[in-house]
């Protein structure tokens, strides 16, 4: 395996959690809800996935546990913001703080234990392709899931009636309500989808990217996923590109640390966060691009007047 191939394999592995979480959050935001709890749902998915896989010895069950946990966390958010009309920014922050705290507590007995690794599945023929074969077609099931989810999300949002309803609810919830669509139900479903995706992202971290549980191991990836959605101007295809750019930045930092070269490792470790700020500034600075797909009702509570 050449160096380029090896680098590509790690970049794909580093990008997958970002892509999964960002795709989920994109759907949530398209329905007009801002869930800042991605980090909390992701870290809970990571610990639940690890714990279930370790206890039962099956990575598949770990994935299921992570998804269920992600959905459970997101429904907590849905209950507060959709049923009780609580402030979405504050509730999202609460979800993140709660998730980081609870995962630390739940994960304490699992710290330092060897985990179960998600197996790689080689796709016949395609995995033999030069350079891209091993990176894209000899990966674990979550990597393939991230591709499928991206394509499916892009298709559903732009080509189906379901997608049209989601976008309508996000652009003008009063009109959507007047047309007879159940705004709250649509939003709750989108929030649950976002939770499932964040759970998958967490599972990839603790079952594939590394096979151990470390407290707060998401290290801001949930927040970067949120930034990616803005960076991608709410378009699934651009989320894919963005996630891979950020994954590349992450891996570049690791490689540069390996080479030494006198650069402080802390500077290299902060590269993804600095890159996020730069990306946000660049995209927000372009008002036309930034406003083009922004859901008009993003972050606003909706209480139906019966």
């Amino acid at each position: 395996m050449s160096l380029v191939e090896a680098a590509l394999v790690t970049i794909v592995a580093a990008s997958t959690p970002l892509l999964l979480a960002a795709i989920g959050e994109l759907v949530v935001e398209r329905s007009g809800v801002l869930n800042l709890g991605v980090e909390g749902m992701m870290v809970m998915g990571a610990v639940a996935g690890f714990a279930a896989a370790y206890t039962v010895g099956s990575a598949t069950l770990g994935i299921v546990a992570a998804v269920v946990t992600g959905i459970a966390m997101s429904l907590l958010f849905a209950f507060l913001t959709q049923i009780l009309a609580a402030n979405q920014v504050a509730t999202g922050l609460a979800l993140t703080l709660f998730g980081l705290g609870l995962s630390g507590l739940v994960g304490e007995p699992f710290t330092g234990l060897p985990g179960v690794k998600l197996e790689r599945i080689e796709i016949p023929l395609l995995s033999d392709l030069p350079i891209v074969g091993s990176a894209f077609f000899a990966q674990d099931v979550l990597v393939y899931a991230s591709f499928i989810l991206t394509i499916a999300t892009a298709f559903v949002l732009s080509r189906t009636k379901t997608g049209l309803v989601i976008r309508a609810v996000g652009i003008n919830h009063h009109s959507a309500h007047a047309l007879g669509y159940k705004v709250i139900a649509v939003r709750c479903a989108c929030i649950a989808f976002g939770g499932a995706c964040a759970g998958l992202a967490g599972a990839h971290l603790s079952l594939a990217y590394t096979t151990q549980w470390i407290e707060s191991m998401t290290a801001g990836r949930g927040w970067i996923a949120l930034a990616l959605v803005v960076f991608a101007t709410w378009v699934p295809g651009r989320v894919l590109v963005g996630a891979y750019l950020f994954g590349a930045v992450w891996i570049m930092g690791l490689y540069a640390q390996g080479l030494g070269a006198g650069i402080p490792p802390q500077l290299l470790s902060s590269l993804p966060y600095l890159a996020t700020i730069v990306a946000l500034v660049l995209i927000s600075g372009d008002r036309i691009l930034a406003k083009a797909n922004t859901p008009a009702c993003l972050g606003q509570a909706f209480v139906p007047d019966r």
Partner: protein
Amino acid sequence: MRLILEKRPERSRWMPFLSPLLAIGLTLVVGGILFAARGLDPLHALYVYFVEPVTTWWSIEELIVKTAPLVLIGVGLAICFKANIWNIGAEGQLTAGAIAGAAIPILLPGWESPMVLPLMILCGIAGGIAWAAIPAFFRHRFGASEILTSLMLVYVALYLLDWLVRGPWRDPHGYNFPHSVSFESWQLLPTLGDGRVHAGALIALLVVFTLFIMMSKTLKGFEIRISGEAPKASGFGGFSRPRTLWFCFILAGGLAGLAGICEVAGPIGQLQPSISPGYGFTAIIVAFLGRLNPVGVLLAGIALGISYLGGEAAQIELTGVSDKTARVFQGMLLFFILACDTLILYRLRWIGTGLATTTPKRGQA
């Protein structure tokens, strides 16, 4: 039968005061259930957790030490949130303040003068302001979300601190341990008697009082409130949104920086890789529990301070309870407070499916 939200004709008068108490009560009930599920006597566990920390003078001192930074940061954040400005990077601003303030004793260790401590505090405030100015500038100039940029800068600040204490600022006689030189007596905040309570607590009280007056009695306070509650009206009234943005970030950043330097020049006494057990994030909960009101923040700061101390006490006294429980309680508390706050504007009402026609419907009567 189903439960629905019904808008109150006007804001509830009592819920703003009841809701934090209700939230604390619910947290205690759920906490008790969780302790019971672990096979502990819930009442004893809650006593160890929330009452014991305030029964001895030693632990009350410790409580004041923990509360001071929470209150300092919390009031700044409360004013930001009041203006609908979401600075959630206080942890980074605290770190930047600690670094900037600690630069004086580390770079000029021999300079002994009564000027040193005030200068350290000023540098600490300036460090926090500088760190907070970055998201404010990006928000003002480019419209970049301050939520994400301020949070990203937390990681950057923590890595910067880590680099400094492991690299250029490491104590040369510290046996390679990652920390700076220990500060000398003239570089440390004065303490109350021989105890651990330092001048930071007094500063926090002064800040709370000043900001309470500002928010309730001055035009600036009105400008901040109106800017958050009715941005359009505020614009028509001639208040500038960017000015509020800058004011809030500078205020909150400066206070977080002040909390940072008070920590390193107070209980810690040197720069080390970890200088805060998440005060900057817990202060978000403090701000909400305190109803975004400076005096409320003071009371909320004490409540959250107890949760930190209780976590430590519980780890020692209760079998199988980790100090990580504290963060779960804190997160849970924020959920409950947000849920209870709904009752300020809405009330819950059961409507029966069969009786739906007899219940008076608003707007159709």
